[in-house]
């Protein structure tokens, strides 16, 4: 692989694993996050709070200047779990900005400003919850559903301009973030390692996949959610919402 990649949320979790793997493949990487990732000669770090509209306005020119890009992974995201109405409105505002609004603005803006090279790939990291529903994280679920359908909606228009759009729907990963939001007694060893998910994502970009659901359990869950949406959402309530002993945001 050659060229320049842009990864949002590259300092931890799936983004961190991706940044490391892309650097190992000699790509130049631009990472946008709040905290810097490990330093590297081919890495540019842009500090920007992607959950804040004004900060995105300010950081945008630096993101454009570091392009054009061959691969963009819009990965930054947070969750908020617990009883819906008990979580403050400000938390939901930041969540929707980070998970939905900023990726949409970036995709649209990168295309408008010709910051995507011909043949570039644009990856949206949605969530497996798109197929299952997610009681106990209604706003997170909304943010990821919105992102999934945005990706679907722009695919043809972007393809006509030489950019392929990829939707990724990861299930729970073994990250500190997932740990905080998991219900009590959840088995962390069943979560996929971020490195493995990053490998699957990169393999998918090479194979030209449009949709990436990493791992067999996640694929089966997605299938079940498509076939029996109400049953699977009911099951999610029992397995997650009813076991949540606290709100985390």
């Amino acid at each position, binding site marked *: 692989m050659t060229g320049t990649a842009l990864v949002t949320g590259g300092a931890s979790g799936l983004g961190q694993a991706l940044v490391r793997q892309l650097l190992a493949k000699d790509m130049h990487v631009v990472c946008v996050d709040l905290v810097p990732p490990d330093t590297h000669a081919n890495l540019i770090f842009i500090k920007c709070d992607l959950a804040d509209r004004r900060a995105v306005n300010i950081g945008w020119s630096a993101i454009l200047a570091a392009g054009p890009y061959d691969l963009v992974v819009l990965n930054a995201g947070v969750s908020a779990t617990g009883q819906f109405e008990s979580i403050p409105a400000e938390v939901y505002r930041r969540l929707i900005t980070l998970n939905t609004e900023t990726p949409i603005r970036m995709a649209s803006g990168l295309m408008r400003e010709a910051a995507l090279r011909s043949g570039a790939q644009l990856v949206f990291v949605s969530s497996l919850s798109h197929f299952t529903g997610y009681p106990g994280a209604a*706003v997170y679920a909304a943010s990821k559903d919105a992102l999934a359908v945005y990706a679907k909606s722009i695919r043809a228009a972007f393809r006509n301009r030489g950019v392929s759009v990829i939707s990724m729907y990861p299930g729970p990963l073994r990250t500190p973030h997932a740990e905080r939001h998991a219900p009590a007694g959840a088995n962390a060893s069943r979560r996929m390692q971020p490195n493995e998910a990053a490998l699957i994502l990169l393999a998918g970009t090479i194979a030209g996949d449009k949709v990436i659901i990493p791992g067999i359990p996640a694929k089966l869950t997605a299938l079940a959610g498509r076939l029996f949406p109400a049953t699977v959402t009911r099951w999610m309530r029992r397995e997650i919402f009813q076991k949540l002993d606290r709100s985390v945001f």
Partner: protein
Amino acid sequence: MTDRILITGATSGIGNALTKRIAHDNDVLVTGSRSAELVSPDLPAGVRYVQADQTRPEEAVDLIDGALESSGWSGLDLAVLNAGIGFACEPHAETPDTIHQTLDVNLMASMLLARSLSGRLEAAGGKLVLIGSVAHRGASGFATYAASKAGLHGFARALREEWRNRIRVQIIHPGPTATPMHARAGFDPGRIGRLFLKPETMAAMVHRAIRADKSPVTVSFGRYILSGAFAGRRL
């Protein structure tokens, strides 16, 4: 029985037609973005109006909360969150401003209102109805609009399950309707626009869907044909 009903975005389109349909035997409070003097000719007598611009969701929530408080409504039987906005253009032509407005009105304001209304809805054993769109499955010329409605769909799916046995939650996806939204969105449906349902017809179908309580539910041509309304059956 008289219900206390809140309808957002009730000064035109489906929201307005629904308000006219239910105003005579209920207590209705509606919202819109324009001033009361401008909208009063379009609203039935007895309906209370609060000007709350949902492009600023946090302020709109406070204004609506205040209006419910001053109306003495400690309980709310039905909230229909219907206000919506859209912009028709190629994805790269959407500006930060149109993206913000679309997500604020269609998604953020509805979620924050659901949050602030939960106490009143629960007190009355009430019901939350979200008005989505058939575009929630994806629409190339309205990408952010489709995204916002998909978000609303996922929100309703999660919340209906989370609030089960407490507050009923329903999402209704109307199909193409001849409302002023298309013109405001910069979208000309052309000849196909003649097939769009009238807002009054759509409001009747939405009203029926609210009483049936199925969620998610799509109300569009197919349902119009099946209902027998074309043959004169009353909706």
